[in-house]
């Protein structure tokens, strides 16, 4: 993948950047997120009022309890898997591929990585790297199945990845309860053997202490944050600065034009699915390497589907997705707060949903407004007497 910087000029489809300064376009760019936030707040407030709560007190509590040091650390920790999940989805979105299979990809990847990691003996950093590589490989292969099905047989990846989720779930459960499980005396859980010390990722508490923050008892800053940041930077570089990234975006914008320009669409589909799956394979690793050290019945679930919402909200950019993941994790964290003030905990899911919906709708509305504006400008310029006006 050579870096062809000279090809980097054309704007990303989802977030058009004005070629020259235009106050009206700037207004439109700011209008979308603002509009979305207002609509989401309105919908959430209606839901809160309907459930018999005062929205302002609820928001105030969510803010005050959600910004304690412990809450912030938990929010960051929970945002990491959501971030990776969303990146995996977003990579596919860039070329119009819908990888709905992150769920199955990360489940299978976490299970097999946990089992492989517990089965080998390696020195510290190598052991951790080994677990990560296994997880990425499993995720990539599982997603690759959908890629090959699409190119060889024309099977829609939406259908195949959903189906593969079901197969992955069944396969993981079967393997977990048969070959890969270690029974623990007195436990009703089934889990893989615990990873040895050498495969456990250290936390970042030392880093926090170095900047004068003392983490509260029992709450740590997970080490996988660093990996997630590296993945985010690589993602940004590959998508915006590499030939692959250019072909990816070109295919997403106009598939037939891209093919005419010499892009190998089939190869692109398979490679994109492999890369998307590799990122998806890492979704379970923050928990596996930093917290539970095994894959069991109590492993986090549903992260693949939440990631789709985060990817939509983040609008394809790694920075946007980071903020979206933090927002989702913040709202999840607030579910505990909501319960403590007797607000139905489902409210936070309504908030997540209304935010995603309003962002999608707001950007579409603003895009149409922009198009209409441009059309008017063209009409004005071409109408008889335009020169007089100008």
């Amino acid at each position: 993948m050579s870096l062809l910087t000279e090809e980097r000029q054309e704007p990303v489809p989802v977030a058009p950047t004005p070629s020259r300064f235009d106050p009206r376009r700037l207004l439109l760019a700011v209008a979308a997120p603002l509009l979305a936030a207002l609509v989401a707040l309105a919908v959430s407030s209606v839901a809160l009022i309907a459930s018999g709560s005062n929205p302002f007190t609820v928001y105030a509590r969510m803010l005050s309890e959600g910004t304690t040091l412990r809450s912030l650390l938990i929010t960051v920790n929970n945002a990491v898997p959501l971030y990776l999940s969303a990146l995996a989805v977003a990579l596919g979105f860039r070329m119009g591929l819908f990888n709905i299979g992150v769920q199955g990809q990360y489940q299978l990847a976490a299970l097999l990585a946990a089992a492989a990691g517990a089965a080998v003996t390696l020195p510290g950093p190598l052991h951790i790297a080994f677990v990560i590589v296994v997880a990425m490989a499993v995720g990539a292969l599982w997603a690759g199945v959908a890629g090959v099905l699409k190119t060889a047989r024309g099977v829609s990846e939406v259908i195949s990845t959903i189906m593969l989720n079901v197969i992955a779930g069944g396969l993981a459960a079967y393997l977990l309860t048969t070959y890969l499980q270690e029974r623990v005396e007195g436990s009703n859980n089934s889990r893989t053997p615990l990873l040895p010390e050498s495969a456990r990722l250290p936390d970042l508490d030392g880093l926090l202490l170095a900047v004068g923050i003392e983490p509260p008892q029992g709450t740590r800053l997970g080490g996988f944050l660093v990996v997630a940041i590296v993945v985010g930077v690589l993602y940004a570089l590959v998508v915006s600065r590499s030939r692959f990234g250019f072909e990816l975006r070109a295919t997403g914008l106009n598939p037939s034009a891209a093919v005419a320009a010499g892009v190998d669409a089939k190869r692109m589909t398979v490679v994109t699915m492999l890369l998307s799956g590799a990122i998806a394979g890492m979704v379970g690793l923050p928990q596996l390497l930093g917290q539970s050290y095994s894959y069991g019945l109590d492993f986090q679930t549903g992260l693949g589907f939440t990631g789709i919402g985060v990817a939509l909200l983040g609008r394809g950019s790694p920075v946007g997705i980071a903020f979206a993941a933090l927002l989702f994790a913040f709202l999840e964290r607030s579910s505990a707060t909501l319960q403590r003030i007797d607000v139905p905990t489902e409210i936070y899911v309504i908030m997540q949903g209304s935010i995603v919906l309003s962002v999608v709708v707001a950007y579409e509305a603003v895009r149409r407004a922009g198009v209409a504006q441009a059309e008017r400008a063209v009409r004005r310029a071409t109408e008889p007497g335009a020169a007089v006006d100008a």
Partner: protein
Amino acid sequence: MASLALMACGSNDPDTGRDTAEPGSSAAAQSDAKVGLAFDVGGRGDKSFNDSAVAGLDKAKAEFGFESEELSPNASGSDRGDNLRQLAEDGFNPVIAVGFAFAESLQAVATDFPDTTFLIVDDASVKSPNVKALLFAEEQGSFLVGAAAALKSKTGNVGYIGGVETPLLKKFEAGFVAGAKQVKPDIKTQVKYLSQPPDFSGFGAPDKGKETANGMYDAGADVVYAAAGGSGVGVFQSALAKKTLAIGVDSDQYESVGDPTLQPVILTSMLKRVDVAVYESLQKFLNEEELPAESVFDLSTDGVGYSTSGGFVDDISTQLEELKGKIISGEIKVPTTP
């Protein structure tokens, strides 16, 4: 640290006023204890396992008049440990963890809060002096309803539907099949699970329960045991449509199902008295009695059993009671794995 906990408590009190027992609602003295309860994914309102735990808490609350708080985890279950920690930090003692999935996080939290007593339902793997396990002999109760199913079956074919294929639900299956074979050695048993872990949707999917039961009844079964939490309603609906029988689980579902048209199909329910376990443990704790590291609730203490509401098993009660006696005396050993 401490100020954080204090702040959380202080700001919390007025809001949880609704949870506190009404003053004067009970003759008993107001206890200044604060009881915390952490649900697993699913939470309050499942008309089964979780609600049974709440029933025990509510009963103790009415008697002792303490303050209580309940927390459910988020959808992915990532904050189970955070919830336990939150309750312990806010001064709740004891803290009840409902479900085996809390085991891993409880180990760490129990070490950090040595002065807080933790009760955990369905797990005996956490080794800490302040953790008390509440365990059930589900296979014994399932054995008896298995026997009831076989005695009532005219086709010689009975079914078992488990919510999620976990070791715990395998225990139910083992007991049920053994019980059926005890009274009719040549009986045919069908076994199906609704979802595979870590997908726990099988405990809340009445549609799946209904479909699976339809399949079993069509294949010749005429009694199906639904050990599937909230999915059981679907099994009852199927039984009603197919004019067959079904067996409930955890609580007396004849009483709790809420739909009188479904009552006639509920032959009996396997009772897993989480409510009794929670109530008795709280009673002991509040009376400052020492709780054992492991409390096992089985047939001998009526911690598990079968329900008789509706009177459908009255004609076979002598046989069931005889089997019950044999299990208590140890004459019959019920397997815990299929």
